[in-house]
C-alpha cells in the first residue's frame, strides 16, 4: 500500500514544530543561522536541515497582505529523477512508495542535487576531492516501519500535515480544495497527485503553485532522455567499431597468408 503525506497550507501556521521535530528524530545538529531580513530561518535546506518552512508575503489586489507558508522537503516522486540518475543505487524507491537512500552506497557525485526538479537533496562535500554523501528527508522510515507516523506529522499542532494511504489522501485533498474554493480561494487545488507519476508529498494550496515556488510541470530535465538514449548509443557505437575492426583484422591476416603463399 503506497503511503503519502498531505500538507494543507491553509492550516499551516508556520510554527516550525515540524522543522524542530525533524531535527530531533533524525538527530540533526542545530546550525548557526543568520537573519536574512525575512521570517525564513534557515533560508535554505542543508545536509543538516531536511525540512524548513518558507514564507511569502503577497499583496492582495484590493489592498492588504496575505502571509502564506509551506514546509519544504523531499516530494518523494513516484518517478523520481534522482533515482534515475543515481549511478550507485544509493537512491531507490522503497516498497511503501518513498524515495529512500542508503548513505553508505553514495559516492558523492551529486547528480541527484542537479537533476531534482524541486531542489531538495543536499551534499556534504569537500569540492576539491569530491568526498561526500547526499542527504534529504527520508519520510521517517525508521518510524513508519515501526507503525508510527512521521515526526513532522506527529508534531504538527494544527493537523496541516497528515500521513496515510495515498489514495485516501488524494480524496481528502480534493475535497478540501473544493471546500476552500467555496470559501473564496478561487485558485485552491490539490498539488502533486498527478506529477512525476504522483508525488508522495502532496499539498492543498490556497493559490497557484507559482505563488509557493512550486513548478507547474516538474520534469527530470535531461534525465528523461539522457540515460536510456546515451547508454544505447554508447553500446552501439563501441560494438559496431569493434565488429568493424575484427573484420578488418581477419581480412588483413588473410591477405598476409595469401602473399606468403
Amino acid at each position, binding site marked *: 500500500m503506497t503511503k503519502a503525506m498531505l500538507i494543507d497550507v491553509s492550516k499551516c501556521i508556520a510554527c516550525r514544530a515540524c522543522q524542530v521535530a525533524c531535527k530531533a528524530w533524525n538527530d540533526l545538529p542545530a546550525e548557526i543561522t543568520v537573519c536574512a531580513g525575512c521570517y525564513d530561518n534557515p533560508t535554505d535546506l542543508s545536509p543538516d536541515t531536511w525540512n524548513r518552512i518558507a514564507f511569502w508575503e503577497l499583496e492582495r489586489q484590493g489592498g492588504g497582505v496575505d502571509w502564506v507558508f509551506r514546509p519544504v522537503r523531499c516530494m518523494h516522486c513516484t518517478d523520481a529523477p534522482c533515482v534515475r540518475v543515481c*549511478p*550507485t*543505487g*544509493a537512491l531507490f524507491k522503497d516498497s511503501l512508495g518513498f524515495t529512500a537512500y542508503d548513505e*553508505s*552506497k*553514495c*559516492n*558523492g*557525485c*551529486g*547528480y541527484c*542535487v*542537479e*537533476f531534482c526538479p524541486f531542489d531538495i537533496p543536499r551534499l556534504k562535500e569537500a*569540492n576539491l*576531492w*569530491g*568526498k*561526500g554523501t547526499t542527504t534529504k528527508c527520508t519520510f521517517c522510515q525508521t518510524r513508519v516501519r515501526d507503525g508510527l507516523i512521521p515526526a513532522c506529522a506527529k508534531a504538527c499542532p494544527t493537523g496541516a500535515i497528515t500521513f496515510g494511504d495515498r489514495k485516501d489522501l488524494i480524496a481528502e485533498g480534493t475535497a478540501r480544495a473544493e471546500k476552500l474554493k467555496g470559501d473564496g480561494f478561487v485558485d485552491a487545488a490539490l498539488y502533486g497527485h498527478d506529477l512525476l507519476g504522483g508525488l508522495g508529498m502532496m499539498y492543498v494550496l490556497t493559490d497557484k503553485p507559482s505563488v509557493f515556488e512550486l513548478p507547474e510541470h516538474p520534469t527530470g*530535465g*535531461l*534525465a528523461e532522455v*539522457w540515460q536510456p538514449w*546515451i547508454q544505447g*548509443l*554508447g553500446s552501439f*557505437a*563501441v560494438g559496431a*567499431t*569493434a565488429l*568493424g*575492426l575484427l*573484420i*578488418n*583484422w581477419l*581480412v*588483413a*591476416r*588473410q*591477405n*598476409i597468408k595469401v602473399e606468403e603463399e
Partner: protein
Amino acid sequence: MTGKRDEILMFSTTQRFVHWLHTAAFAVLMVTGLLLYLPWFSRSIATGVGGQATRLMHRIGAIAFMLVPICYLLFDPRGLFAAMKRVFTWGKEDLGWLRAAPAYYFQGDEEAMPPQDKYNTGQKLFYLVVVICMVGFIVTGLIMWVGRGAVARWVFQWSVFLHDLCTIGYAAFFLVHFVLSVMHPLMKGALNGMLFGWMPREYVKHHHAKYYEELQSEQ
C-alpha cells in the same frame, strides 16, 4: 631528415612525451570513468567509499589530461601548430581515401588508395575527434568539478550529457587507433614511430607517399 638505418624522424621528443602522457591519462580516466558510468560497476565497485576513491582518481587523471595540451603548447608550439595545420587541411586525397577506405579495410584492396600526407585521412579524423572531445571533456569536466552549484542546473545537466557523448567518441576511435597501431599485422611501423620517433623509409614511402614527396622536395 634521415637516420642511421634509413629511417625518417616523424615525431619530436615533446610530441612523443605528450602522446604517452595522453595515453596514461586516458587509461586512468577511461577505467575510472567506466567504473562510474556502467551500472554493473557503479553499483558494485564504484559505490560508497570505493566510488569516492574512484572519483578522486578520475580527478587526478583529469589533471594529467589537462597537462597534455599545456605541455604541447609550452614545449613544442611549432610542432603543435604544424600538426594542427595538417589535420585541419582537407583536400582531394582525403575524399579519395574516404571512397577507397571500405575496399581497403574490409577487402584488402589497396588499388584506389590515393597517396597520403603525414597523417592519413583516418588519422586526421581521429585527431579531429580527439581535439574536439578534449575541449569538450575539459570544459564540461571543469563545470562538473568546480562549477557545481555555481552554474545553472541545465548547464550542469548538459555537461553530464556532453561528457558522456565525448566518451563515446573517444572510446570508439581509441579502439580503432589501438588495433591499427599496436595489433594490426600490416602497420608495424606506426608504433615504432611513436615510441622512438623514427619510421622506416619504406614504410613512410608506402603509407604516407604525399608526405614522402614533400620531404624529398625539401631536400
